[in-house]
């Protein structure tokens, strides 16, 4: 079965369980911590994906590592994944869980790339504009990209709103080639 489909199934089941237990916020903070760990610690990442590690060792280690550090529900979920031999998909499952949380809370994450640093007012203006457009709480992530020359691009989901000079020049170039 494909990795995305596995992640979707486990994430949905776990999320629904957390919601029923009214532990969504706690669980999501655990998930973020686990995801940060997988990204930062190469050893932990290796441990998740290495098929050479025996299942017993894996279960034992997961138990020791997380027992007192995360909520009992999250801990049980990790052990369950270890028993089902699905730890290799942990990162993707976490990503999917974050997506489900955003959907549940009505949050829209947008990626703003700007040629220059945005002032607080500008940032507020962005948030307000997108809040009105999507009727969701906007969670922006701003990056500085001098390649854009001037202006900005905003990515919300799969859609990009390109208002940069670099983008306009590219369109202009294409139109000239076509003409």
């Amino acid at each position, binding site marked *: 079965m494909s990795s995305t*489909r596995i992640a979707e199934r486990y994430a949905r089941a776990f999320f629904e369980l957390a919601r029923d237990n009214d532990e969504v916020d706690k669980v999501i903070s655990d998930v973020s911590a686990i995801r940060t760990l997988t990204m930062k610690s190469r050893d932990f990442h290796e441990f998740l994906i290495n098929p050479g590690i025996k299942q017993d060792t894996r279960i034992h280690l997961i138990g020791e590592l997380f027992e007192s550090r995360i909520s009992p529900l999250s801990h049980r979920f990790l052990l369950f994944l270890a028993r089902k031999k699905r730890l290799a998909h942990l990162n993707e499952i976490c990503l999917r869980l974050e997506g489900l949380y955003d959907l549940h809370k009505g949050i829209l994450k947008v990626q703003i790339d700007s040629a220059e640093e945005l002032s607080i007012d500008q940032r507020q203006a962005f948030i307000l504009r997108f809040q009105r457009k999507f009727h969701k709480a906007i969670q922006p992530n701003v990056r500085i990209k001098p390649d854009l020359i001037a202006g900005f691009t905003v990515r919300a989901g*799969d859609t*990009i*709103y*390109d208002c940069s000079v670099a983008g*306009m020049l590219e369109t202009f170039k294409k139109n000239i080639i076509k003409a």
Partner: protein
Amino acid sequence: MAIDLKPEEVSAILKKQLADFRLHTEIYEVGTVISVGDGIARVHGLSKVMAGELVEFSGGLMGMALNLEEENVGIAVFGDEKMVREGDEVKRTDTIASVPTGEALIGRIVDALGNPIDGGAPISRDELLQIETKAPGIIDRQDVKEPLQTGIKVIDALTPIGRGQRELIIGDRKTGKTSIAIDTIINQRGENVYCFYVAIGQKRSTVVKVHETLKQHGAMEYTTIIAATASDPAPMQFLAPYSGCAMAEHYRDSGRHALIIYDDLTKQAQAYRQLSLLLRRPPGREAFPGDIFYLHSRLLERAAKMSDKKGAGSLTALPVIETQANDVSAYIPTNVISITDGQIFLESNLFHAGQRPAINAGLSVSRVGGDAQIKAMKKTAGSLRLDLAQYRELAAFSQFASDLDAATRRQLDRGARLMEIMKQGVNDPLDVAKQVFIIYAGVNGHLDDISIERVPEFQARLNEALDSEYIDAVRLLNKEKELTEEVKNAIDEALVSFKQNFAKETEETPGSSTASS
């Protein structure tokens, strides 16, 4: 071809583009490349992409969305996949693959997307047509009734092709399939038929050769070559026939006539099989995907003779299929045979025996072409078919017999001469009136007293004489287009007189004989 660049024109274009330049927000949908390999990119995102939509990779490379799956989109990459990397952005273009059409394409060589590859000027993309369109409906069509002369005697007489027909050219490798197609294009000179030659999976050198031949005979003035050669990626080879068809449809739908040659559809089927397997579609017989029949039927259904209300234009299709060891019962040949309105079957045995074009008259048929033959040819060819069939039967039988009665020998002699007149050189198409003359001579016994070796010479001389001495008879036949008593008498008179001259010349030439073989 040198590009005629005028500085004023460039300035004007730049000025116009600058005047239209406005600051605006561009909104587009993107996805991310998850994996790429074997010409297929798997992309995450692009949630609203359409099936068959063109997409653009961040390097400027184009692709076509073929598989829309739950988690990702399977995209066929048009070009070098090495330019695409994991994590690259893929942009939607909101357009289904389309190609430029119109007169600007005449005389050009283009790729499957309509981009020129002959080093000439860019082709204007003002007039675009989607490459995948539905075939004309039932009401929009009419019967095939006008002939499309190939200039090849054996085809025009026995398996005539009408405008709007689909006639398959099938045979092993090196049996002269392409030659028939090229001769047909050459013969369309002055007939107001726009020709399209789609080369699929061929060597580039072959395409150059075809181009040179067409140019030599002045046929590039009304021909476009669409080339997706063996070195082009499979998606291009799969698309090329549809692109060519879209270009030809422009003429069909504007009340004009077009001829398209798909050389060859076996290669297209193989390219599609490659794509389908890489896209993980389930394989069927000979590992072809389940929709391989539809691949060809939807393409060939677009050939049609349009109704008078729709302008009475036509698109004639001559698909080519290559067989292995004369096996017409393989998957793709049987499919295409069942789709088309007849087939011209070429055999390597005949080819090597010197019978060229190596058409097997017994297995070749034309299901609708008879209605599109001129009456004179239909009448003449009627007895030719019968004579040839009898000859084949007797020839096979007589191989075991030593003594033959006079009637059988006569029939064999007649048949041998008919087989001889069916021979024709490459790139030497013949006018229909001349074809009627020579076939008439053959079936009515005018050649019986001429030795087989001298039949080609007789034919060549007769062709020359028909252009000069007997031009009135040719004119009469062209005018009447029917074998009336008057026309018959004119032909007989011309033939008798020509034969006398021919015999005299032969007597003057020492060493030559007129004895029957």
